[in-house]
């Protein structure tokens, strides 16, 4: 009677212990899963950042006068925001100029051999480069 009674208690304690161990293993697995989920999210964000470079912006230098006035046109279907203009690798203009589709705008930037425009998407557009001899 005493023996069977003691055995019953120990089995119950053992079951509780197994339950707790299972709970602990579950918590650890959950922790590992959540860490992996964060890594996947971070990778997606990075991919999105790289994808942002692939835009359909089309800018054209219509005319660049010797007096430093440049006519820049947006030939694409979407509005483009020009943030900076570089002449001969020097910053010639900075600000915010949004060109609608098929719209042209004049910028006073000085004259040089190469003209590069940076847009709101972070893209650099080479509109003119020095003539190679």
């Amino acid at each position: 009677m005493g023996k069977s009674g003691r055995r019953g208690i120990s089995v119950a304690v053992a079951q509780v212990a197994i339950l707790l161990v299972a709970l602990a293993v579950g918590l650890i697995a959950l922790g590992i899963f959540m860490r992996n989920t964060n890594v996947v999210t971070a990778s997606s964000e990075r991919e999105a950042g790289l994808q942002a470079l692939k835009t359909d912006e089309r800018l054209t230098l219509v005319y660049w006068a010797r007096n430093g006035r440049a006519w820049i046109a947006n030939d694409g279907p979407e509005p483009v925001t020009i943030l900076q203009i570089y002449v001969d690798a020097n910053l010639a203009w900075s600000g915010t100029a949004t060109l609608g589709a098929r719209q042209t705008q004049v910028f006073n930037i000085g004259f040089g051999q190469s003209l590069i425009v940076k847009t709101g998407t972070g893209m650099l557009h080479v509109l003119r480069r020095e003539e190679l001899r």
Partner: protein
Amino acid sequence: MPSQPVVALALVMVALALVLIVGTVGSTWLSRHAEKVDVRIGAVQMVRALADRYLLVVSVVNIGSVPVTVQTPSLRGDGNPSCTLLHVQGSQTIKPSERVEMTLRCSPARLGAEYLVTVNTDRGVQAWAKVVAVG
């Protein structure tokens, strides 16, 4: 006393389970409240402007939980080009989940060569990316 080893084993298992539970909960709580310092180069582009002078645009994103101040990016590779910062879009002290875009002039560089862009921060972490100089 045949049940004593079983009880002892059960107690050991309970103690082990408690340690595991407290450890897991504790580490999860600490990781949530700990400062995470991390930056990443979101986008990088290197375009030839004039002769061997190239424009380099580097976008740095703060993916940590505290503000980080980034230094001017440096370039390593063919010809060991040196860079001059021309323009900064945003603040070089980047808040969490925000970004800064820096435009630099680097020379001498070579068309088609691959360069390593490195950005250091005041917190000691570093971000890097490879870029190819395009025409």
